[in-house]
């Protein structure tokens, strides 16, 4: 295995992150009835893509591709707006990673980006509720109930990343840090 992935290799890795995100959601569909529990998987794969691939839009790419797959496969609630539910957290992760250079080296950096992803999901939920014309008071309650769950699970998913990244780093598999000297 080569450690220096080509652009196509990186794109394929992001594609795998997107497809694993979607298939994990299908395979490990927990009947927890806790709003936002799927963010555990979503935030892990978004942050993984951004940490492994040295591109400023890596998480956005994973989010967009996962959203496209979910729309074509007809998963989740919200029709074509499902794309926003993946894209907004992903763009939040990309923006957060730009603002916090070296986030992947610290647990708090991963945790912060996880929280940003959860907030992005909450923003997307608020948008869907607003589009269907939900009463503003109920929308606030709904967004709070789903948002708290999304942020907590997103944080848990992000906290799974630092041990994985430290082992990848130990094996010299993190190209981003070697390239930028970060």
């Amino acid at each position, binding site marked *: 295995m080569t450690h220096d992935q080509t652009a196509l290799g990186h794109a394929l890795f992001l594609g795998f992150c997107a497809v694993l995100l979607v298939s994990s959601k299908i395979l490990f569909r927990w009947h927890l009835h806790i709003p936002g529990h799927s963010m555990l998987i979503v935030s892990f794969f978004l942050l993984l893509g951004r940490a492994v691939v040295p591109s400023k839009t890596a998480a956005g790419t994973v989010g967009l591709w996962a959203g496209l797959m979910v729309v074509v496969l007809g998963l989740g609630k919200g029709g074509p*707006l499902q794309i926003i539910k993946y894209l907004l957290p992903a763009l939040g992760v990309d923006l957060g990673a730009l603002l916090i250079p070296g986030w992947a080296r610290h647990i708090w950096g991963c945790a912060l980006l996880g929280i940003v992803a959860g907030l992005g999901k909450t923003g997307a939920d608020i948008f869907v509720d607003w589009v269907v014309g939900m009463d503003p008071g109920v929308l606030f309650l709904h967004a709070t109930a789903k948002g708290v769950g999304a942020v907590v699970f997103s944080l848990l998913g992000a906290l799974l990343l630092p041990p994985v990244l430290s082992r990848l780093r130990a094996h010299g598999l993190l190209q981003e840090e070697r390239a930028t000297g970060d």
Partner: protein
Amino acid sequence: MSHSPAPPLPPLWPTALKLFSAIALAALALLSRTWPLLLVSACLIAAFALMCRTPCRPLVRKVWIFLPQFSFILGLYLLRLGPGWNIFLEALRVSLQIWLAFMPGIVLYHSLSWAQSRRLAYTLLPRQTAFVLCTAVISAPLLVREFQDIYQVQILRGARLTPRDFLLPAGWRDMAQSLLFPAVVQCLKTSSEIAQAAQLRGFPGQTKGEIWPYDA
């Protein structure tokens, strides 16, 4: 020995029409804020399902998704605005909108063939994106199987990975160290190998519109 020419490919426009109709119908359902519009939207989605000849069973199964969501939204409405017939109808309308927006996707999933989706991806998306998405979808069962193999092997090695272990921090630590790390390395390895194999076979190729590697 004479070779008969390959049969012509079926036209792509019905698939594209199905995709765009599903997206438009889902958007219409989301925006139908009045009962008459919602009725129109439901009728159009039913007609779409009939035209696509979707089997009934997967559609009927999705009815059960509606009930928990409706009870949750109704609970929130009752909590915020108090009991009343209008409140009940309002909660029903919002839940129906969200549920109806979800149905065209199910119809689409059961009516699209993989070969046609792949051709559509190559028509609509940039070449590398289409190749990556199609390869990722094809490789998904392989990746999931490898993931399951790693899980079984780590369980045999004594890793704490049963559902009950996730109630303790040790279970989460083992999941990251002994399950997620090898799985990520496997993904990196597979993506590197596929990229190398594709480039050695001449990806991205020259002909516009060909489905790589099938038409190459």
